[in-house]
């Protein structure tokens, strides 16, 4: 078993379609105060929080150096602060490095995104593509996900009916999660009749625009019990990036996720995820990604996603009991949401959706179109 860091406390606000009545600074403050209260952590320069990791994005905030707007509400005044400018899950991987390096004992990790604020999430992510070849084609993270869906469904026997089943289940699960975005419960027929969004993805196949913020207290192993009776451990982290041009990639494959998962499992000493892990939280930006990422993290057989759903794989492996990304988290913060659900499960705070005796959990998240960059986190009770 390798070295580990502790999650000592978590606070979040509810995922909402739009926090019209709050600026993002206010959203963060609503998280900071409860997490301080929970852990009794201070901003003392010797014993308390001396470094902060934030997660936000310049384009989604329409502000250069988006962390500049949150230095005060994250307590970063005359303290260290570094911004994770990728999917938030990588902030936990980086926090692990900061603590294991000996540089920090206690880290406050906060993230925010008001996805509702922008004109369009597709306009924002279109900017991720190079201005010469891909951007003029109108590529963005969602229509690239649609191209991936076509390729993956073809390969894995995943049909529209499977996707409808995933959406229905996601919304049902989310009803048990008090922080989940409140979406209407739907049946499979409604999902299949929802308007075509980006062929083959229908409107309800895709996560809805969401605003959210969170705060977490992370700590070295030696001091974890100063802040909580029940720490949850991060024991493994790995990431991997795939090629940029879609034509250079196997769009139906899981090259980067398999590598990321293998790296995280190796660090955490996981030999067989099917046996060793009781809870999986996967960032399904669109419904087809649930079985696809399940293949990637090693709980579904390669190219057999459809069969895996038919055989009840989603419930057997406790996948996305929170409702998943599909129910609604901001694009950038799905990974933190996944990790927070794992934290609740492993610390026995998951309420109605609690998996009894959950000892180990996996959180996964992707950055970029069709999961170009993947990261996996292994957490333990």
């Amino acid at each position, binding site marked *: 078993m390798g070295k580990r860091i502790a999650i000592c406390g978590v606070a979040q606000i509810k995922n909402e379609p739009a926090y019209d009545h709050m600026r993002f600074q206010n959203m963060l403050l609503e998280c900071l105060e409860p997490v301080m209260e929970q852990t009794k952590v201070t901003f003392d320069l010797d014993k308390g929080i001396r470094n902060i990791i934030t997660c936000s994005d310049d384009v989604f905030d329409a502000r250069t150096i988006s962390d500049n707007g949150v230095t005060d509400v994250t307590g970063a005044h005359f303290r260290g602060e570094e911004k994770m400018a990728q999917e938030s899950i990588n902030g936990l991987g980086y926090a692990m*490095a900061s603590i*294991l390096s000996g540089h920090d004992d206690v880290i406050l990790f906060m993230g925010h995104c008001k996805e509702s604020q922008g004109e369009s999430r597709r306009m924002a992510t*279109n900017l991720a593509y190079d201005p010469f070849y891909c951007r003029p084609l109108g590529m963005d993270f969602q229509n690239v996900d649609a191209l991936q869906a076509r390729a993956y469904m073809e390969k894995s026997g995943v049909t529209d009916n499977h996707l409808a089943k995933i959406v229905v289940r996601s919304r049902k699960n989310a009803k048990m999660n008090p922080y989940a975005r409140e979406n209407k419960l739907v049946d499979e027929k409604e999902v299949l009749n929802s308007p075509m969004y980006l062929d083959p993805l229908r409107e309800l196949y895709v996560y809805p625009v969401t605003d959210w913020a969170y705060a977490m207290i992370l700590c070295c192993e030696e001091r974890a019990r100063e802040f909580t009776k029940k720490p949850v451990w991060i024991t493994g982290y790995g990431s991997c990036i795939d090629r940029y041009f879609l034509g250079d990639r196997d769009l139906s494959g899981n090259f980067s996720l398999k590598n990321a998962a293998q790296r995280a499992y190796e660090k955490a000493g996981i030999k067989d995820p099917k046996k060793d892990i009781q809870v999986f939280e996967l960032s399904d930006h669109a419904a087809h990604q649930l079985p696809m990422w399940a293949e990637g993290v090693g709980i579904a057989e390669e190219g057999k996603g459809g069969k895996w759903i038919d055989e009840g794989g989603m419930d057997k492996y406790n996948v996305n009991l929170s409702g998943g990304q599909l129910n609604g988290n901001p694009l950038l913060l799905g990974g933190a949401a996944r990790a927070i659900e794992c934290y609740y499960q492993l610390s026995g705070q998951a309420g109605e959706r609690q998996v009894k005796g959950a000892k180990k959990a996996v959180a996964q998240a992707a950055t970029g179109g069709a999961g170009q960059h993947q990261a996996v986190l292994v957490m333990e009770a």
Partner: protein
Amino acid sequence: MAHRKKNRNVGIIGIGQTKHSSHREDVNQPEMIHEAVSLALKDANLTMKDIDCVVHGNMELFEMIHQPDMWHTLGTGAFGKDTIRITTGGTVGATICCASDNLVASGMYDIVMAIGFEKQQEGHTTGGITNMADPLWFRKIQAGALTGSAAYDVQREIGVERANRASMTYRIIMDKHAGLNPNAHRSFGLDFSQIDDLIKSSPKLVGDLKLIEMCSQSDGACCVIFACEKKAKELSKNPVWVRDHITKHKEETFTIFGYDKKYPWLRTHKVAAEELFKRNDIKDPFNYFDVFEMYDPATWWAMDWIKDFFGLQGDEHIKLIENHEIMIGGTMPINLSGGVIGSNPIGATAMIRVAEAALQVRGNAGAHQNPTPVKHALASGFGGTMWTVLTMLEKELNW
């Protein structure tokens, strides 16, 4: 150091940077980055196979590329590797050096490559910086990075005439250093005989901040390779050790006008330096360090900050400039590279400070190598609303 003892030592084993210039129209962003990456790999005598993790950073709105590490995979060589993108402000280059130090020291990765870049020509730099300010409260009064308050402060402190001359002396020293550095963007061949002329002729931007005293906007990239002690010793004849680093940010309001001198609004440099030196038991930083690579966005800030970094008294910092003690071969050579006033591809700028300080410690910086031995070097980053990152580099593992 820091909170606890460093888990393991980290050395810099490869350094690469492009020629910095106002227009790199011959390359796109990944191609420009590729130049720096190739040079760093060559410098370290490694290939991409040896790299475990790639760390990337810049500011998205300068070029309007969202999560540019995705596209830049073409030039960074990160395909198939762990990658992390961490950003701050102008400090970002220094931040990703700190991040790389943490990633290697943690034991999670043995060799990490950090890449900072900016292609300012492809965007609007002052627009990008102004967009940093709060849209409700401050955006209308922000003029990018152009801040005249430091000129006012220094003039009030030592008198207008002396301040103007010291500022221009600092500028000319930087120009002379830039002339020795083939990668520097701007070197005009200025001479000390031009001081009075430049004070009169250089157009004023804001208050007494003159055009010639302000940094440029540049295109360029920098790449630094970090390795754990074991690998660094195996792979490199002259690794440069990262002793410690510190970051101090400040809340977003600038509160320049009417601030209380007793409360250190704009003194993150001083606070960071004092804390860093205290925890590393360095009592006399001015004598301890052999060179200093300072993030100097403009002469006025640079003059004022020298005092903060080294805890100098009275007008000691001004005398250092007037007596050319900050010049190559002086008692405290500052910015032998020509500094930020010489080259400023913002996402790379703070990393170039670390890279250039490391080159000085290694002793093979070329024409701008300090003539006396360099064992201890300090590099600073500046960004956001007065943020500081400091990195300490050492030749020997003996602290």
